[in-house]
């Protein structure tokens, strides 16, 4: 599905600043679903799909958001390289109507590519609410390209966009630079190889001395070209007595300002939306924390209440009758055991996934998706940075860590974009270590639901503490500089839309099932035979000093720890089952959930880490994570037993 080949059809690339609704448009245009949320860099890798417009087939590519072709972060190199290799025939730029001025500098750059450009205005309704009127006709005239007003809510503008795709012509450059710069650009452009895409853009980047232009650029790597180009650029610098980079950005900026002013008009006084005031409260040191505690409590109540209700519902009307029916059908013995025994393929695999874990994930994803769509997470990142700046992390690393609560793998991929190596390592470690991902957190809440709200906050305090400690230690251990020049636009707070939220939740569940269900069933089969042949009992005996002695947990935890190796949720589900059976005390439950939070990150996360830092460092990190997780869980038991007597 993802292997849709790029070369087959003309390519339409969707570009724009971060968080401007590119993936939303992609989803609507191609009738596919990729994750959308209200924070920058939701899309980290490109999404590809086919689109048929009036018998013509196109390949639509949705790329991560970026600010400018002059590279300041890794994801921007990625976008530029993708563009040069895929050589799109049409470019669609998504512009959030509210951030028109901020987007037009990028438009100026896109106009320099010499390709057909369509501007797609998203979230137009929001500007109306703010008392700003945006005339798309005037904007289209100023830019010389088609401008489509698109609303994801009402799904209008899609037909107009398709029409525009069929007849859009090549766009013309809009910004003129001072004559010496123009001359130099022309000269440099003529020196570039004939088959190089976007010669004007690359000439400009060369003149602006973007160092990343030379990276992996096969065209510029040609014999002697680099020397010639550098010579020419040096000549230019000698004779042109100004910082060309500043002149160029200023020209673009003032052009953007002029175009925006010509197409925007204020209707009366600007109304500051109340939601933005809420954003301020979310980041406030006291109120922000109060809200965070409220949010966490809502999480707890929703997962415990809603998931419990759904689970009961499913059990009563679906899985219990089904099990009873199968039990009646099959005689007691191997096959019944194989299907419905303690480690049965159905009981531990299929029914477990659908009947227990799915309701929990549903409740969790619902609330998490709500927070994502409101735009809470970037604000939370800023709130938490107050504490985590002590850990040698700059603002750049906070969002990936906070997003680790959604999916550690995605968060690790995002952490890749952190420019400083030291910060990247710390962030990757902290994400993998004690941040519970959505599935884990959901199951942890469900488990602790049997022990009351207090246990949940004790758990959070514990993982918060170990994260901070790990951060401080890593900050000491890893050498390198933190690079503190972070600039991040915060997303507009939005009221979430129920339909979009449900779609997202259901897709997340579907992705979970697609990925995890086979593993659940295979793991059930494996552990069934381990038990059948008595290997499990032997393993339990082997692990007893550790599990019983150090951690103070019952024997069944060995199964949970084995299952974690297959899939995190499976192990967490096992802990939930043990807790439901009433075999864990308050302290034991806390130790168990803390352990599974820290112990072995999921396979996808491990792969993401190793890809980024290499086999050796990755292996070291995993070893450290696992050893410290067992040590810390034991310490937690000791500490808690002091107060509660284990």
């Amino acid at each position, binding site marked *: 599905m993802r292997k849709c080949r790029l070369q087959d059809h003309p390519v339409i690339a969707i570009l724009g600043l971060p968080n401007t609704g590119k993936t939303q448009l992609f989803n609507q245009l191609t009738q596919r679903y990729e994750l959308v949320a209200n924070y920058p860099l939701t899309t980290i890798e490109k999404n590809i799909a086919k689109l048929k417009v009036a018998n013509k087939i196109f390949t639509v590519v949705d790329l991560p958001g970026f600010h400018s072709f002059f590279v300041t972060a890794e994801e921007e190199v990625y976008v530029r390289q993708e563009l040069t290799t895929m050589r799109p025939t049409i470019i669609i730029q998504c512009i959030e109507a509210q951030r028109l001025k901020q987007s037009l500098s990028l438009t100026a750059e896109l106009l320099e590519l010499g390709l057909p450009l369509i501007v797609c205005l998203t979230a137009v309704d929001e500007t109306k609410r703010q008392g700003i009127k945006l005339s798309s006709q005037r904007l289209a005239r100023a830019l010389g390209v088609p401008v489509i007003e698109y609303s994801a809510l009402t799904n209008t503008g899609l037909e107009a966009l398709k029409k525009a795709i069929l007849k859009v012509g090549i766009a013309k450059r809009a910004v003129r630079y001072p004559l010496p710069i123009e001359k130099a650009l022309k000269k440099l452009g003529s020196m570039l190889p004939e088959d190089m895409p976007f010669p004007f853009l690359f000439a400009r980047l060369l003149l602006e001395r973007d160092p990343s232009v030379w990276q992996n650029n096969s065209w510029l790597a040609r014999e002697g070209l680099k020397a010639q180009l550098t010579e020419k650029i040096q000549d230019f610098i000698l004779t042109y007595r100004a910082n060309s980079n500043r002149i160029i950005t*200023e020209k673009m900026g003032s052009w953007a300002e002029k175009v925006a002013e010509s197409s925007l008009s204020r209707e009366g006084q600007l109304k500051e939306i109340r939601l933005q*005031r809420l954003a301020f409260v979310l980041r406030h040191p006291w109120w922000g924390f109060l809200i965070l505690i409220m949010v966490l409590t809502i999480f707890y109540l929703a997962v415990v209440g809603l998931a419990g209700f759904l689970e009961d519902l499913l059990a009563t009307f679906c899985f219990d009758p089904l099990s009873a029916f199968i039990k009646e059908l099959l005689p007691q013995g191997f096959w019944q055991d194989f299907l419905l025994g303690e480690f049965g393929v159905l009981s531990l695999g299929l029914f477990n996934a659908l009947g227990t874990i799915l309701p929990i994930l549903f409740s969790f994803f619902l609330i998490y998706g709500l927070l994502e769509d409101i735009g809470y997470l970037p604000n939370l990142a800023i709130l938490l940075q107050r504490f985590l700046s002590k850990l040698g992390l700059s603002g750049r690393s906070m969002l990936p860590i906070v997003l680790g609560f959604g999916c550690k793998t995605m968060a690790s991929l995002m952490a890749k974009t952190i420019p400083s190596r030291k910060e990247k390592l710390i962030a990757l470690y902290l994400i993998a270590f004690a941040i519970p991902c959505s599935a884990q957190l959901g199951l942890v809440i469900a488990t602790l639901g049997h022990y009351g709200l207090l246990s949940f906050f004790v758990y959070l305090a514990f993982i918060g503490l170990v994260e901070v400690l790990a951060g401080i230690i890593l900050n000491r251990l890893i050498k390198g500089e933190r690079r503190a*020049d972070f600039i991040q*636009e915060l997303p507009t707070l939005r009221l979430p839309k129920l339909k979009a939220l449900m779609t997202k939740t259901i897709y997340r569940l579907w992705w979970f099932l697609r990925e995890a269900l086979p593993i659940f069933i295979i793991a059930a089969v494996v552990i069934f035979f381990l038990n059948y042949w008595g290997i499990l009992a032997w393993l339990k005996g082997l692990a007893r000093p550790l599990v019983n002695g150090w951690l103070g947990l019952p024997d069944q935890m060995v199964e949970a720890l084995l299952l974690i190796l297959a899939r995190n949720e499976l192990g967490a589900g096992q802990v939930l089952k043990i807790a439901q059976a009433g075999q864990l005390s308050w302290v034991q439950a806390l130790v168990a959930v803390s352990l599974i939070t820290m112990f072995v990150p999921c396979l996808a996360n491990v792969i993401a880490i190793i890809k980024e830092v290499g086999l050796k460092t990755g292996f070291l990190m995993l070893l450290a994570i696992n050893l410290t997780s067992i040590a810390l869980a034991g310490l937690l038991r000791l500490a808690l037993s002091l107060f509660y007597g284990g």
Partner: protein
Amino acid sequence: MHEQDIHFHPQHHRQHAGGRAKEEYLEALWTMLYEGRASLEELKKRLGSGFKLGIWQSLIMDGLVTQGSEGVSLDFTPEGRQRAEKLIRSHRLAERLIVDVLGGAYEAGACEFEHIRHEALVDAICTLLGHPRECPHGLPIPPGECCRRAANAVKRSVIPLTQLEVGQSAVIAYVYASRDGQLHILEGLRLVPGKVIRLHQNRPVYVIEIEESHVALEETVAANIQVWLDSCYWEDGRNPPSQGSPRPRGFGWGRRWFRLLRRGSKD
């Protein structure tokens, strides 16, 4: 001030005949060294047809510059460097004056001094010139606040964003980027001179509002954004904080919350 040193000491020029021309050479060399390459050949390129070897050699004789063998690795002597730095400084400050004060497009020659919006800056210039009462053509200059107070020292007219108080708005005067790539981002966010920003919070990162969007900045970036001191204002009409009397401490959150509520009920 340095500019005065240069412009108000004519004997400085008289000592060296052809001072103006020599200064051109010093400026050119300074820029070349800043760019990292300096050879006689490039000096020729830079100065074009006006290049005369004699002037260069006289600079060497004066002990202002040094030259390696075969016209490469040109450099300053300590004295020469000091001279060149002063020249560059006054040159660029003059440019700043023309662009910022006299209304921008100096290439076009359209300088419009009367359109300066920042009174503090006008006052600063007035104080610098000793509160003159007549223009060069003999017409009267209306006295400003600074003349009435007969201020003697020039007050600083820009402060970094980091010195703003939470909730204050101000007009951006200068924006500096620590890396070239940052310019594009700052420009994209419209963090450019002349724009009004409002500081929403200053810890742990700075959050500012600009052009209806909220941007989080790290302290190093915020310190590179300079605003006009005179333009600082509170949105609710309070006066800018007078220097010396600190704002009341404590209950900041309560006051802010109260203000939020009050403003919330108005619209």
